[in-house]
């Protein structure tokens, strides 16, 4: 095969972001605009939604129909579930987790935010910071999203006035100082007209910052993952049982934190055995070093008993090994969380049983206040709880590592995913 003429895509990286908002603040219009202006909507898709819009009697091409994929959603004009959308520029590929703002917003926002690097928070320029703005920002912060882009939308409806934008920026900054989001950007836009979405606005010469797309393309995410604390949960043990690879024993998994080098001394949890990394490989490739979030196969110098659910770490930097775990839980199911109830827990590649020991408090997600008098946790509620697990888990604080710091709670009988936990 000849060399590729334009292989710039071999340098592209990936940004996952989430958008949250209600029907009225122009979220669908904004996504539609991003997709349309980056040429990610195709003619047949546009034809199809034009036809549906006509059928529904909409007076304009309803870009929400692009994301509302299910029949029930189109019939009712609502978004039921997280929808994923994709677009790319020569610099980056983008994955949008588009979450509905009204129905089950917490459940859906938490799901969308759990894998996102960045959140777009939309504010209607006419209304400023409202309850929903705070709720969305709180969830983004709780899920440890490191970058927020506040889009002050509908600037066309406030005559593109700088004072309006500055006032909202000030209000939001005051509120957000209590959140743990290190990187916040503000952009005045009109999603409907396209101002500052992909193209620079001619209506707001006073704004000197980048457009939304420029910001999405250039936000620095290289420091978002944890490269300090080496964590390798074993997913699967590779034993070929063939003549050629008779003694091969490889540990397959994804590096969920830090870096591993060939020759590094590693400790296996829970056994505590130590060994050295003999090779890090993948098909015909050999790596000297591997880092998060690479999926690799590792071999060790010594033959020791290792199975799925074990974790390879470095001696001087182990995770917390504990059966009593405190976490923030987001409840995703109509059946309420039961104190004293027994559930299954999935954490990294490990599965254990747990008992709910205590609900410490519930969070009012609009005001961020702790509610210690109301200790029921039901659908879409967030609270701090204490659990005890049947076996020790190897955990980090969620704010240090999203992957070794998160777990899900599963119903033993119905197998449903009931809750999402962030370890404190």
């Amino acid at each position, binding site marked *: 095969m000849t060399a590729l003429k334009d292989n710039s895509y071999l340098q592209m*990286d990936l940004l996952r972001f989430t958008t949250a908002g209600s029907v009225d603040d122009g979220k669908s219009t904004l996504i539609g605009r991003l997709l349309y202006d980056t040429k990610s909507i195709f*003619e047949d898709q546009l034809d199809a939604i034009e036809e549906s819009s006509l059928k529904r009697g909409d007076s304009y091409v309803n870009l929400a129909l*692009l994301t509302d*994929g299910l029949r029930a959603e189109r019939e009712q004009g609502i978004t039921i579930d997280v929808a994923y959308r*994709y677009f790319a520029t020569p610099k980056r590929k983008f994955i949008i987790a588009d979450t509905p703002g009204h129905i089950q917003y917490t459940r859906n926002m938490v799901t969308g935010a759990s894998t996102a690097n960045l959140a777009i928070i939309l504010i209607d320029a006419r209304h400023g910071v409202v309850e929903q703005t705070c709720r969305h920002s709180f969830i983004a912060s709780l899920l440890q999203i490191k970058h927020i882009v506040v889009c002050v939308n509908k600037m066309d409806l406030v005559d593109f006035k700088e004072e309006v934008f500055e006032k909202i920026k000030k209000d939001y900054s005051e509120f957000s100082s209590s959140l743990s989001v290190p990187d916040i950007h503000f952009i005045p836009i009109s999603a409907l007209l396209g101002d500052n979405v992909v193209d620079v606005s001619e209506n707001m010469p006073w704004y000197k910052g980048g457009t939304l797309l420029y910001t999405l393309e250039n936000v620095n995410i290289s420091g978002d993952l944890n490269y300090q604390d080496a964590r390798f949960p074993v997913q699967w043990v590779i034993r070929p049982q063939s003549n050629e690879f008779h003694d091969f024993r490889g540990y397959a998994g994804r590096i969920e934190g830090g870096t591993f080098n060939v020759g590094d001394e590693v400790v296996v949890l829970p056994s505590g055995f130590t060994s050295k990394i003999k090779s890090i490989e993948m*098909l015909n490739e050999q790596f000297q070093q591997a880092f998060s979030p690479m999926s690799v196969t590792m071999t060790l110098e010594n033959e020791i008993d290792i199975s799925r659910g074990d974790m390879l770490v470095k001696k001087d930097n182990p995770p917390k090994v504990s059966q009593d775990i405190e976490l923030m839980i987001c409840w995703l199911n109509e059946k309420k969380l039961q104190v004293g109830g027994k559930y299954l827990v999935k954490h990294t590649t490990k599965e254990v049983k747990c008992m709910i020991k205590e609900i410490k408090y519930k969070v009012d997600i609009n005001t961020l206040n702790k509610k210690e008098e109301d200790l029921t946790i039901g659908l879409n509620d967030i609270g701090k709880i204490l659990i005890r697990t049947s076996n020790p888990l190897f955990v980090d604080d969620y704010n240090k590592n999203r992957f070794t710091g998160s777990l*899900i709670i599963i119903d033993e009988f119905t197998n449903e995913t009931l809750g999402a936990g962030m370890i404190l």
Partner: protein
Amino acid sequence: MTNYNLTHLKQLESEAIYIMREVAAQFEKPVLLFSGGKDSIVMVHLAQKAFFPAKIPFPLLHIDTGHNFVETLDFRDEMVERVGARLIVRLVQDSIDKGRAVEEKGPNPSRNGLQTITLLDALEEFKFDAAFGGGRRDEEKARAKERFFSHRDEFGQWDPKNQRPELWNLFNGKKQIGEHFRVFPLSNWTEMDVWQYIAQEQIPIPYIYFTHQREVVNRNGTLLSKCDFITLLKDEFYEQKQIRFRTIGDMTCTGAVESSANSLEEIIEEIAASRVTERGTRADDKRSEAAMEDRKKQGYF
């Protein structure tokens, strides 16, 4: 300082391999649904990577409609031989002969919908509890709401309004007896990602993805290849064109595109400039607005 950034293709690859290993670990009897198209070829490549130097720890299952491009079948057999995989083939024709399925009427009867019957029968026959599909969320709007681990009830049905939330990289594959999962490792890939990955990894694909001369008939704007399963209507005629296929499915519903793209880089350029989605060439999706959703609910791929 070292740069720890992974390219988008490396991240997508890592994610897909992670999913495949989770399935191997969480399920007793997984299977990879192999259609002969580029997405399932990419999946086989990923499966090799995930488990090397061991063989792929699950078989491939091809639901053969009998309406395949002969090139697809040749390629399939050659590939299975090369990677040392186990291949199971189940024929839609057998389902029809047994009276389990009834052939459509019309000038190009599609066996697309009938595949679901043969597929569900095959899953039950072998007691497969997880089936990998090459579906991508960018392909079709109903797929945009699909999970990586997609739960199916004992009738093989999908309930899009009642899906398990998926957070972080924690996938819940728990199920009752008789239920199964469909798993989509390529969920986050786009058509462009697939082509770029094929180019990066130099994965062999059937030649009909590249430009060639072929006799086609233009039916409602779709260029269908000449074959035994299509009856020409009045005023229709076959003509020789320089074409290639952007997707490969049944001959009765896979439309060709006029193209001179002769290499992977030319295909990538062509797709970058294209203003139509790849499913735009598929007659099976044009039957109604919710055609894909309806088929998926029944147990389609």
